[in-house]
């Protein structure tokens, strides 16, 4: 293969032909550079690729196209033009043969689960609002604090354990927190009281989509790169990455049985960071290799089924919470785009099974997997097995980086080591070991090029595309937010000082009882005195007299005033604290998105 000399003798070598790598290459091509891209699969798109079988297109994972990043959106529009469709979004939870809205809505859940179950969920929710886990050490505790234990068991446990293959009590609470990562405290507090703007709602309820899936976009991007002199090599694996004096010097690529050495001046990689580190020659220090061994991924396979029914359900995808089947999520590709299906009398489904590369499910024969898919589809009642007329299995490696309790510290070791290379940047979901969406991956590609060419200093590890639209909310509401946060909130949510309130009530009560006692004694009010004396049934020693009655009245009056008032103030503060915490958790829960969602 010939390697192009490019503008100013800069030779960009890009490892990985997924959204991040291709975007970097596209950016370079637009700026008259001629990058060379190596992709190990037979098609571009990486984990956002689209497979094709008998005229049916299958999007691996389902990828919504929505972004508030103007530059990402511009690239999509520029490349896709009229092939970009605006599609409505519907994704629900499927449980016990019923659909449930997500985010959960009380009446919808109540209708689906019944009044008795609804009551139990309500009690459970109340219990966990009043007595939450003080430390949220894992996913289970995080969700329980926001939804209650019973709802957690029904709507979170089964699906999450299918996805990650580990108990929810072993899954880091950060996973859930990551799903609401852009909801900082300020935004959370605001969202307790301020409804999201219509523009944001629109983004959530609709999305853009290429007519024949994301693969259509990435093929067009590949063509445009090549039209401008860049090269994209498929079926080409980078097996060695050589470096010297803090610079990557060349990569060794394997294509079929052929090996070739490719030199470059700049290297950008979106391959899994673990694979990259292991391919380095000479090898990095042992500590870095050890850290690499500690990072892990979750993989999935899609059983694609063609069903002889024109319409199955309205959703783009559904989350399957049925505990008695292995399938975790089902894509209905016809609802993503009608062009994904060649025959309008049929539908195509993608039954997604989350697994680990090499485990029993991963190694199961394709025919057995198709049978399993048909069976499970029948069991949960979405389609009859007899209606399935064709099937095919596709496997996706390293689909999701796993966030376990120690991944951050290991990632930091690798990150520090990679930072020593002057002419290298790692990008994309697996390049950064960061669960992020397609538009985010693309931004890392764009910014990597700008860092290399324009001397920019974008921190690719902290780019977050979703931030953009949350930022927009913040900008729009900033004036209100500052006022609310800094001035109104502290004044509205105040504390009542229990000792001061108790003392005030105690003093007033004490003085009142003293005056009444003295008044009765000094005016010799016999009838009133008899009634007042009854107080000594509760206040031993009290009598209507100057001494010791007046003395006791001061003492008892204070106690009678202080006790209830102190309790009242403490209770009022506790309830208000609970109320505010509860509002915060509700705001977080409302912003939690089931994962993996389709992006």
């Amino acid at each position, binding site marked *: 293969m010939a390697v192009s000399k490019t503008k100013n003798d800069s030779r960009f070598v890009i490892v990985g032909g997924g959204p991040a790598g291709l975007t970097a290459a596209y950016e370079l091509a637009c700026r008259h550079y001629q990058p060379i891209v190596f992709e190990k699969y037979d098609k571009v798109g990486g984990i956002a690729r689209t497979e094709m079988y008998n005229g049916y297109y299958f999007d691996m994972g389902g990828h919504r196209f929505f972004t508030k990043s103007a530059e990402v959106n511009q690239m999509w529009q520029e490349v896709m033009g009229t092939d970009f469709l605006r599609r409505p979004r519907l994704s629900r939870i499927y449980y016990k043969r019923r659909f449930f809205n997500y985010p959960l809505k009380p009446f919808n859940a109540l209708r689906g689960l019944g009044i008795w179950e609804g009551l139990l969920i309500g009690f459970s929710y109340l219990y966990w609002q009043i007595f939450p886990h003080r430390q949220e*050490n894992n996913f289970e505790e995080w969700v329980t604090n926001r939804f209650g234990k019973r709802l957690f068991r029904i709507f979170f446990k089964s699906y999450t354990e299918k996805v990650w293959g580990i108990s929810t009590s072993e899954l880091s609470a950060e996973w*859930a927190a990551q799903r609401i990562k852009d909801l900082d*405290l300020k935004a959370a*507090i605001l969202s307790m009281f301020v409804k999201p703007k219509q523009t944001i709602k629109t983004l959530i309820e609709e999305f853009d989509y290429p007519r024949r899936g994301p693969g259509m976009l990435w093929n067009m991007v590949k063509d445009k790169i090549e039209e401008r002199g860049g090269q994209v090599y498929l079926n080409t694996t980078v097996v060695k990455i050589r470096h010297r004096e803090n610079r990557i010097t060349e990569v060794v690529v394997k294509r079929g049985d052929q090996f070739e050495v490719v030199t470059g001046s700049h290297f950008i990689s979106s391959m899994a960071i673990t694979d990259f580190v292991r391919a380095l020659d000479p090898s990095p220090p042992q500590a870095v290799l050890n850290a690499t061994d500690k990072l892990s991924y979750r993989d999935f396979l899609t059983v694609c089924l063609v069903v002889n029914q024109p319409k199955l359900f309205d959703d783009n995808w559904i989350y399957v919470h049925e505990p008695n089947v292995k399938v975790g999520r089902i894509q209905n590709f016809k609802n993503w785009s009608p062009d994904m299906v060649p025959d309008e009398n049929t539908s195509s489904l993608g039954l997604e099974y989350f697994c680990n590369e090499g485990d029993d499910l991963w190694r199961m024969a394709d025919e057995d997997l198709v049978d399993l898919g048909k069976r499970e589809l029948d069991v949960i009642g979405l389609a009859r097995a007899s209606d399935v007329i064709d099937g095919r299995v596709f496997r996706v490696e390293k689909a999701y980086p796993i966030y376990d309790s120690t991944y951050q510290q290991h990632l930091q070791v690798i990150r520090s080591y990679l930072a020593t290379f002057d002419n290298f940047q790692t990008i994309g979901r697996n390049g950064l070991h960061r669960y992020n969406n397609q538009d985010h991956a693309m931004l890392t590609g764009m910014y990597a090029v700008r860092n290399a060419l324009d001397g920019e200093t974008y921190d690719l590890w902290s780019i977050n595309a979703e931030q953009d639209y949350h930022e927009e909310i913040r900008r729009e509401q900033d004036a209100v937010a500052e006022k609310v946060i800094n001035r109104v909130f502290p*004044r509205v949510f105040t504390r009542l000082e229990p000792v*001061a309130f108790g003392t005030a009530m105690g*003093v007033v009560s004490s003085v009142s009882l003293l005056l009444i006692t003295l008044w009765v004694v000094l005016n010799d009010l016999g009838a009133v005195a008899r009634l007042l004396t009854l107080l000594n049934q509760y206040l031993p020693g009290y009598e209507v007299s100057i001494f010791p009655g007046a003395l006791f009245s001061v003492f008892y009056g204070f106690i009678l005033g202080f006790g209830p008032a102190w309790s009242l103030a403490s209770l009022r503060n506790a309830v208000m*604290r609970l109320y505010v915490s509860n509002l915060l958790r509700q705001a977080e829960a409302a912003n939690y998105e089931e994962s993996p969602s389709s992006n």
Partner: protein
Amino acid sequence: MTKDLSEQEKNLEKIVMTRLVRLSAIVYGVVFGLVLGSGLLIATLWLVIRGGPVVGPNLSLLGQFFLGYTVTYWGSVIGFAYGFVTGFAIGYSIASIYNWIVNRLGKE
């Protein structure tokens, strides 16, 4: 990372529940006054409407403290006035003493 509830709530508490409430003496006075005045008005009217050979023997003892108060229609109005004044004094005193203590404590 462990998403720590207490950490999150501590952040929250940096914004809310930081200040001690100051009570408005006038508002407290009016509220206490209205509650006590209305209470006495209703209690008196209730007994008057119910009637009987001796109307409100126990409640009428309040006349020992509130000069002119009787368990009658007119007495209920006088009772409201006394109740309001007494309640106002109690509420006003509670709020004033509370504020004085909080200020003395020097808390925000």
